[in-house]
């Protein structure tokens, strides 16, 4: 806190008699300036330590992502070799985008969309996959499109359109300090920590995804196919679960 003291410089012309109140103010400001300098030095040191740790963690995360991908490949090959079928792991993470506007919305889907923090057209949120969330998505199927985002999509969304909820305000994630202040107690101190927690749906997924303000995406370049119909319909449409193909859409909306 001391690093944010606002120190005002008092201009006293040379040789002029200094009024009593001005003198008191000058002394006070001097003391605060001293405190501020010390706090800034301490902050700088802490920052360097934190950054070193974050660097190590990031390298570990990269290795983790590569390892899990390689493991899956190995298992698929092994299954083919043995003539077995490899059951792909079910998705853990979903990214939901609101497709419908706000006019003429039935009360139940309207409420569910509010609960999912999808209050505006083209808002997007990360969601954990479990029974309750899947049931909620069932209720709002015709108004959203969702799927399983890839690591690249998650990274790009968070870096380009990541904003955090800091004392109820939408603050851009322009510095790791913001993240550290908000999520430090959960062990999350930087952008890569957030990305890892979201992508691997870690134990603090709820806190992290709640800290992230709902993503405000652009309209997709190249357009939707037909928002009135479902993605899986033969005639072509947009709402509902489009699994891996959400990444293509998000690439155009991000």
């Amino acid at each position, binding site marked *: *806190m001391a690093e*944010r*003291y*606002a120190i*005002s410089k008092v201009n006293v012309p040379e040789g002029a008699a200094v009024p009593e*109140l001005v003198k*008191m*103010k000058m002394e*006070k400001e001097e003391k*605060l300036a001293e405190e501020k300098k010390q706090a800034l030095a301490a902050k700088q040191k802490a920052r360097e330590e934190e*950054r*070193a740790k*974050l*660097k190590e963690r*990031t*390298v570990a995360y990269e290795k983790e992502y590569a390892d899990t991908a390689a493991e899956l490949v190995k298992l698929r090959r092994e299954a083919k070799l043995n003539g077995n079928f490899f059951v792909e792991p079910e998705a853990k993470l979903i990214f939901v985008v609101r497709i419908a506007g706000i006019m003429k919305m039935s009360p139940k889907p309207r409420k569910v969309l509010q609960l999912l923090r999808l209050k505006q057209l083209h808002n997007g949120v990360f969601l954990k996959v479990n029974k309750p969330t899947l049931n909620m998505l069932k209720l709002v199927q015709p108004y959203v499109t969702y799927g399983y985002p890839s690591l690249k999509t998650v990274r*790009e969304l968070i*870096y*380009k359109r990541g*904003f955090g909820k800091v004392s109820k305000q939408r*603050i*851009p*994630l*322009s*510095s*790791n300090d913001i993240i550290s202040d908000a999520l430090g107690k959960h062990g999350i101190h*930087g*952008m*890569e920590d957030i990305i890892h927690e979201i992508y691997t749906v870690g134990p603090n997924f709820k806190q992290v995804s709640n800290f992230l303000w709902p993503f405000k995406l652009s309209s997709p370049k190249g357009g939707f196919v037909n928002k009135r119909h479902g993605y899986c319909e033969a005639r072509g449409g947009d709402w509902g679960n489009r699994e891996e193909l959400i990444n293509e859409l998000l690439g155009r909306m991000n």
Partner: protein
Amino acid sequence: MATARPVVSIYNFENPSEKTGTMPMPVVLQSPLRPDLVREVHRDMAKNKRQAYAVKPKAGYDTAAASWCTGRAVARIPRAPGGGTHRAGQAAFGNQARGGGMFNPTTVWRRWHRRVNVTKKRHAVACALAASALPPLVMARGHKINQVAELPLVVSDGIQSLTKTKQAKETLKKLGCGEELQKVIDSKSIRAGQGKARNRRYVKRLGPLVIYNEDNGITRAMRNIPGVECAHVDRLNLLRLAPGGSFGRFVIFTEGAFKKLSDIYGTLKSGAPKKKGYTLPRAAMANADLARIINSTEVQSVLRPKMERYTHGIKRNALKSKELMEELNPGSTERRAVQLKSSQKGTPEYDEVQKKKKARIEESKKYNKEHKKGDETFYKTLMKAFEAKAAADAAKKAAEKADDEEDEE
């Protein structure tokens, strides 16, 4: 107010450049300044000398007019009855009719006068007196007091016994009021508006107000000097102390009158001896110097220090800005550099990648040699399946043909 002057000089009326003595400043002249109060009380008090005006009660209705109703090709307004004159059949009664009554006729029972609480009136007078003791306020009101020695201007009692206007004028001039009196004379002009035809032809500015204790001729001496007014200290009128609702009238006290102010108004502790149940107004703030209060140690010691505001600037995209990416993801630039190097021929990273690639290809070749040899290559397995189906189809066709031939036979 703690910062008022404690003592006022008394000037000799015969020789106004010399002082005959001093007197303590009465507490009433240190009352808090309340221009809003003075304005409000003046506004209401000034209404009390009004004379009623109204139109005649029957104005416009002293006819036996009645509407002709419909069916006669005229408007339905009441019309004067009878015949034989222009007036017959003419419209009457309405405000739109010629000779009709006015809209909302003015009445004498309009509430002309206003009552003001006695305490309020007394507070206003105290306030106006206090303002008259402050040179900036008196100058702001428009009085020319540059040559006046001191405010409040107190003159020895001899002035009360003046009988000749000429002498009074001289005295005032010697007291420094010459410029003020001249201002009044110069300002005489014809009134703008109908008042000029209603016995209020001329207007001029107001000059000094002389407040006396004992009238031994002063009122008669002063009354013909343009602009000068006299008032007895027992009967001070707000309408004269704050003309037009603006306080700061130029006041000249006589010694006796000045002394009597303390007797009439008293102090904040004692109350006013001559005004039953009345105490002078108290200021809302004892110490009105906000800057000093805020910067005092008592206040500053319990405040937290002022903080810089959070500024977030414009959001930049880390995917585009390498600088920001390094800030958010420490080590990303060097990792990226290593990655780029691995596609440049001749670097150790490139060799590493090529080695891995070679190993992978070797592995693949070995696997293929082991598992996919002879009839188990991709093409052969594909063609085997195809040929099996082709053979089955050919057999079925042959069987059909054989059946047909049998049928023919």
